[in-house]
């Protein structure tokens, strides 16, 4: 047996289906929805749906790393708020109404975006360091980020920051080939980067190992602390990108409502996509599917004009169900 395995890679249909069951669910949902509501697959509707899910999706590609490392990031939504108000305040042209800093000239859009992302990275580095070195539960540490960043956003600006410069709004408003919104392009780029890091770099392998068994990872010479800090930086950077895009898309930034509960949707997407909360299991394609499934549910419930509260009930059931199935799948391996 051992001599023949050299480089043979069997294709196992059962394994393939079990790993990709979420895509199957997605296809079924799309077909079903198309039958009940024929506008579903129209270009317009698809674009609206993707645009709407992109920002939470970007958050999910960050948060999945924290879950993979046996942690969580509850701060992402508040980072969206903080970064969006700060970047927005930097791109208000002189002379517009309610300008936060009336005397300050607007920064170029790209510079403001970089500032926003840098702020995200800094927050991630701080919370990551706290988690890695004090060993406090990530749930608590990031609950702290959630409260603090939301409050900082409100302190920074007591009211919404609006009238943003067009060269900043282009990040979300541009279109590729006149049809694909730039926000969706950025979503796909983050997907690609996250996936690349996960499977093609030492960093990704290290996080799988840490999530699977951090003691063993340490013995194998992996610097657990440094890697955890990187994870929380990445998650916060994703949230910051989300914040920049949300401001760019809406042309405004409201410190009290922006990003509210985004982290929960992102966690839900990562979870439905098979990211295990016991650590060590995640697939980027699963998370992509999870984001799309949530998007289709959101969109479908709107198309079917299901009441908002009811749609949350349905989402809740789907998330819990997904985790039950996922735990059973992984229980045998641990």
């Amino acid at each position, binding site marked *: *047996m*051992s*001599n023949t*395995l*050299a*480089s*043979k*890679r*069997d294709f196992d249909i059962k394994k393939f289906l079990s790993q990709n069951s979420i895509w199957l669910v997605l296809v079924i949902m799309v077909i079903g929805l198309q039958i009940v509501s024929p506008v579903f697959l129209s270009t317009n509707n698809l674009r609206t749906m993707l645009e709407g899910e992109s920002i939470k999706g970007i958050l999910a590609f960050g948060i999945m790393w924290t879950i993979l490392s046996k942690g969580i990031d509850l701060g992402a939504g508040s980072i969206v708020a903080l970064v969006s108000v700060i970047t927005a305040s930097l791109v208000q042209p002189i002379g517009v109404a309610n300008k936060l800093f009336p005397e300050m000239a607007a920064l170029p859009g790209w510079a403001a975006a970089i500032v926003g992302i840098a702020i995200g990275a800094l927050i991630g580095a701080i919370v990551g360091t706290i988690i890695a070195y004090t060993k406090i539960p990530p749930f608590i540490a990031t609950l702290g980020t959630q409260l603090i960043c939301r409050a900082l956003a409100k302190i920074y600006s007591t009211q919404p920051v609006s009238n943003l410069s067009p060269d900043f709004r282009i990040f979300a408003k541009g279109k590729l080939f006149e049809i694909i919104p730039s926000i969706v392009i950025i979503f796909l780029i983050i997907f690609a980067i996250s996936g*690349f890091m996960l*499977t*093609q*770099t*030492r960093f990704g*392998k*290290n996080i*799988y*190992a840490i999530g*699977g*068994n951090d*003691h*063993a*990872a*340490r*013995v*194998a*010479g*992996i*610097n657990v602390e440094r890697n955890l800090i990187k994870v929380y930086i990445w998650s916060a950077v994703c949230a910051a990108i989300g914040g920049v895009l949300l401001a760019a898309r809406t042309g405004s930034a409201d410190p009290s409502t922006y990003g509210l509960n985004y982290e929960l949707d992102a966690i839900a997407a990562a979870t439905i996509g098979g990211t295990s909360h016991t650590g*060590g*299991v995640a697939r980027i394609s699963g998370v992509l599917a999870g984001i799309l499934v949530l998007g289709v549910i959101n969109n479908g419930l709107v198309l079917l004009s299901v009441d908002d509260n009811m749609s949350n009930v349905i989402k809740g059931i789907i998330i819990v169900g997904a985790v039950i199935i996922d735990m059973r799948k*992984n229980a045998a*391996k*641990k």
Partner: protein
Amino acid sequence: MSEEYVLEMHDIVKEFPGVKALKGVQLKVRPGTVHALMGENGAGKSTLMKCLIGIYKATSGKIIFQGQEVSFPNTLSAMQAGISMIHQELSPVMERSVCENVWMGREPRKGIRVDHKKMRQDCRELFQKVGLDLDPDEKMGNLTVAKMQMVEIAKAVSFDSSGGIMDEPTSALTESEVEHLFKIIEDLKSKNVAIIYISHKMDEIFRISDEITVYRDGEYIASDRAENLNIDKLITLMVGRTMDKMFPKIECPIGETVLKVEGLSSGRAFHDVSFELRRGEILCFAGLVGAGRTEIAETIFGMRTRTAGKIYKEGKELHIKCPEDAISNKIGMLTEDRRGNGIIGLLSVAENTVLANLKKYGFPLSHSKIRADASDFVNKLNVKTPNLETPIANLSGGNQQKTLVARWLLIDPDILIVDEPTRGIDVGAKAEIHSLITKLAAEGKAIIMISSELPEVLGMADRVLVMHEGTMTGIVDREDATSEIIMKYATGETAPQS
């Protein structure tokens, strides 16, 4: 004193997957006596006791307690029947009070409410009975380990058992507390309670036991009254076996010193350990469980803080703070706890193989190179796995171990530390690992091997470093090493200073 036995265990067999831990052993205990169980680590003493009180279910065999055949489904029913056990490892609930710990699971009640007053009162009486001066409301976590052990003993007494099992009860006690414990034991004896006493400390055994039963490798060896035995006779019974041919030692030239350790200490785990390790040499750490052998290895490998001493590799002082540092100095360590800090169960055989060496595969990672290396070692070490993508958790213990050996070979270590490399794996894989380690030594690597199995130590080692309770008691060369000498040092006798 009645001549009949309060407890008889006949032909007890206990099999674990791949290992036969007990091969049909017996034990007969008279009421009102202290019956000592002796044997090396892994002889089966603790396993036998766990079968008795229902932690394990014996594969076959008969247990007769107070004239009736019994089989306890769990420890609680054993306690209710009158057998309580003081475990080797304590498991108190640190955040609750002493008295809640004592009465846990059987709190006195008034209606549906817990009767805290009675609980406290009973606790005070109990402590008085055993002469323990403690506040029942003190938090368990505030006590010293020794005091916790005494609480544990008091708890066992509180069951009014007719049989008590003490597994290494004195391991954490100071001398005066040991005296205290012995008084309690005398007191219990006078109440016709039978006590099964497991200890590695010879002086204790001969002081308090009436009868001694010896086990070896899961087999019953002998049983006799204590006055008919002495330390030498007992050691011979414990280790006296013919050496099997499992250890294919290759004689190879021993080269220059690679590792030099001077006065190494780590907290209370061990202190002032010095030795040298040379190329091509297998240095074994022998000693009983808790002697500090693993801790020395962990300190060298950076898993544990060094509180004193120096470590040199090839004449250069090392400052290792974490395993990462050790690995970059070409030191590898196969840890004792394969599941706890060895394998990453969810990851594949290939990923587990290359884990300590990911730097080698560049950016982006070269998956084809990873697969090539993994498959190379899987073939070389004869790891039996369906394919390289199989999660390592699905492999047998021996094959997991071989994968982990591959992980360390991949860093091309100068020094390889292997801690209990053959624990819990089947005989075939054991022999493969032995020959692998010997071959590595022959290739000029320096090996530190920690083993609790004397035959393994005697068969493999070029030199044996013996530890006893955190102190180095001797270093023995291969030609002088016998079971008796090692056992003597391991139980506390120090080597004559030369």
